[in-house]
C-alpha cells in the first residue's frame, strides 16, 4: 500500500530545504563581520565571530536603543511568554470547569459572551485597546503586556472540549465519595489534565513569546522591550549607518526564535497533540 518512491523523498527534501535553509543561512551569516557580509553577501560558512556578535547583542548596554541589553529583552520575553501561558491555563481551566460541570442560570449567555471573543482578534481593536490601557495606567507594565492578551477564549475552548471527554462516571464516583466541587477539581480534574496543560502551555508560550503588535504599542520604555519587539528597533537604527549591522540583526533574530523553536522541537509530541486534538 505504502509504496515509497524516490520522487516522494525528493519533494520532501525540497520542502525541508526551503523550510530549514533560510534559518541556517541566517545563523551562519550572523557569525561573520558586518563588513564581510556587506561585501560577500549571506553566507553558508562559519564566520568565526560567533562569540563576539552574540555577546554584543546580549550584553552591550544601549546596543540598539540606549538603555536595554539583549539579555534584558530576553528576560522580558520570558516573562511575557510564561506569564501569558500560565495565566491562560488558570483562567481557562476555571472558566471551562464552570461551563462544563455546573448547572446555573445564564450559563448559555456566558458561553456566548466568551465565545464571541474568538471572532475578533486584538488587532482589529488596537487603538481603543491602547486607550483603555492608558486610562487604566497600564502602559509600560508587565500587567499591561500580559493581561489584555488573555482576553480571548482559545484556552477555554481547549479545556471545555477536554472536560467534555472526561467520563461522567468519574464525577459520579467522586460524589459518592463525598467530594465537593473544589476537591473534584483539584484531586481529579487537574491531575487528569496534566498532558493537556502541558500541550497548552507550549502553544501559549510560543504565542506569547512571539507577540509583536501589542508589545510595540504597550512599551515605550525600553526597559520593557521584548526580543521580538527589539527586531523593529534594530531595523530602525540601521537607517543612516554606513554599513548596516547585518550580523547583529541576524543574531537578534536567531536569539528571538531560539526558545520557542527549542520548546516546539523538544516537546513536539505534546505540541502536536495540543494543536490537533481540540478546537482552536
Amino acid at each position, binding site marked *: 500500500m505504502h509504496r515509497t518512491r524516490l520522487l*516522494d*523523498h525528493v519533494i520532501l527534501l525540497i520542502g*525541508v530545504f526551503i523550510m530549514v535553509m533560510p534559518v541556517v543561512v541566517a545563523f551562519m551569516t550572523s557569525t561573520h563581520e558586518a563588513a564581510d557580509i556587506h561585501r560577500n553577501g549571506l553566507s553558508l560558512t562559519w564566520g568565526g565571530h560567533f562569540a563576539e556578535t552574540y555577546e554584543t547583542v546580549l550584553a552591550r548596554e544601549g546596543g540598539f536603543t540606549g538603555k536595554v541589553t539583549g539579555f534584558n529583552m530576553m528576560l522580558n520575553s520570558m516573562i511575557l511568554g510564561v506569564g501569558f501561558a500560565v495565566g491562560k491555563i488558570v483562567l481557562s481551566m476555571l472558566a471551562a470547569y464552570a461551563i462544563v460541570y455546573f448547572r446555573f442560570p445564564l*450559563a448559555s449567555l456566558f458561553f456566548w459572551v466568551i465565545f464571541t471573543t474568538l471572532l475578533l482578534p486584538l488587532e*482589529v*481593536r*488596537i487603538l481603543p485597546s491602547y486607550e483603555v490601557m492608558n486610562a487604566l495606567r497600564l502602559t509600560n507594565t508587565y500587567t499591561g503586556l500580559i493581561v489584555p492578551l488573555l482576553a480571548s477564549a482559545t484556552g477555554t475552548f481547549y479545556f471545555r472540549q477536554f472536560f467534555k471527554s472526561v467520563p461522567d462516571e468519574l464525577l459520579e464516583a467522586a460524589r459518592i465519595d463525598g467530594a465537593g466541587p473544589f476537591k473534584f477539581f483539584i484531586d481529579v480534574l487537574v491531575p487528569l489534565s496534566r498532558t493537556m496543560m502541558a500541550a497548552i502551555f507550549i502553544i501559549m508560550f510560543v504565542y506569547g513569546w512571539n507577540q509583536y*503588535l501589542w508589545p510595540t504599542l504597550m512599551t515605550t520604555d525600553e526597559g520593557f522591550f521584548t526580543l521580538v519587539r527589539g527586531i523593529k528597533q534594530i531595523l530602525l537604527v540601521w537607517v543612516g549607518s554606513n554599513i548596516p549591522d547585518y550580523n547583529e540583526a*541576524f543574531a537578534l533574530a536567531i536569539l528571538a526564535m531560539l526558545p*520557542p523553536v527549542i520548546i516546539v522541537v523538544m516537546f513536539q509530541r505534546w505540541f502536536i497533540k495540543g494543536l490537533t486534538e481540540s478546537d482552536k
Partner: protein
Amino acid sequence: MRGRSKDQGEQAAAKRVQFASPFLPYLFLAPQLAIIFVFFYWPSAQAIQSSFYLEDPFGFGSTFVGLTNYADVLKSTEYFGIARFTAIFTALVTFFALAIGLLLAVKADGVIRGNATYKTLLIWVYAIAPPAAGLIGMMFFNQHIGPLVEFARWFGWDIKVGLDYFDTAFAMIVVAVWKQIPYNFIFFLSGLQGIPVSVREAAAIDCRSELRRFWTVILPLLAPTAFFLLIINVTYALFDTFGIIDVMVKDKAANNPITLVYKVYMDGFRGNDLGGSSAQSVILMLIVLVLTVFQFRFIERRVHYN
C-alpha cells in the same frame, strides 16, 4: 481531527451529572469574564463609539459627526486599493500555504520510515515569530546581500523590495507562506494519519489511479481539516502577518503594499486619526463577522463530518 465537533452552546457541554451551586460557577467564571469585559468588550464598544466622533487633534474634546468617518473611509480610493491588496494577499497566502502544506503532508504520510525526521524538520518554523521571519525575508530580498535577488536576476528580474510595489508584495507573500506551511502540514498530516487503513485499502481496490483515489476518497475525508485550516489561514493572512509587513515596510507605508490591519495601525498611531482609525476597526470587525458567518453557513455545509 476527530475532536472538532460543531459548537452547540452549553447544551453539548452538559454532563449527565453536574454540580449545582448558587455562586461557585460565577466565582470560577469571574476572572475570565472580568478580563474579557475590560479588555475585549470595553475597547470594542469604544471603537464603535469613537468611530462616530471627530477627535480634536489637540485633545480638546470631540465632536459628534455621525457617519462622516465611515463616508471618508469608504470614499477614499487609497482605502480600496489597500482592501484590494488585502484580498489578493489573503487569497494567495492561504492558497499556497494550504497547497504546499498538503503536498508535503501527503508525501510524508506516504513515507513510513523517515516520517518522524521529516515531521521534525518541517514543523519547527511554526515557532518563529512573524517579525523574525520578516527580518530574515528582508535579508534574503536585500538589494546588496540577498541571494534571492541574485537568483531572480538570472531570469532578468531585478527585485527591488521596498521600492517596487509588486516586488515588495511578492516578497511579503513568500515570507508569509513560508511561515505558515508548517502549521498546515501538521494538521494535514494528523488528518491523513487518522484515516483508517481499511478505508485506504478499500479505496485502493476500487480505484487504481492514485491521483483519482486522492481526489475522490482521501481529499473528501480531509475536508473537515481543510475547512478548519481555511479559517485559520485567512485569519493568519489578515492579522498575524502584521509583524512581517511592519518589518518589511519599516513604517514607510506610502508606496508599499499594506493590509487593512496595517492601515488601522498607521492611521491610529502614526496619523493620530482616532475617528478614522476606529471607523476602519469597525469595518474590519464587520468584515471578519461576515467572513465567519459565510464560512460556517456556506462552506461548512459542503463538508461532511463522519
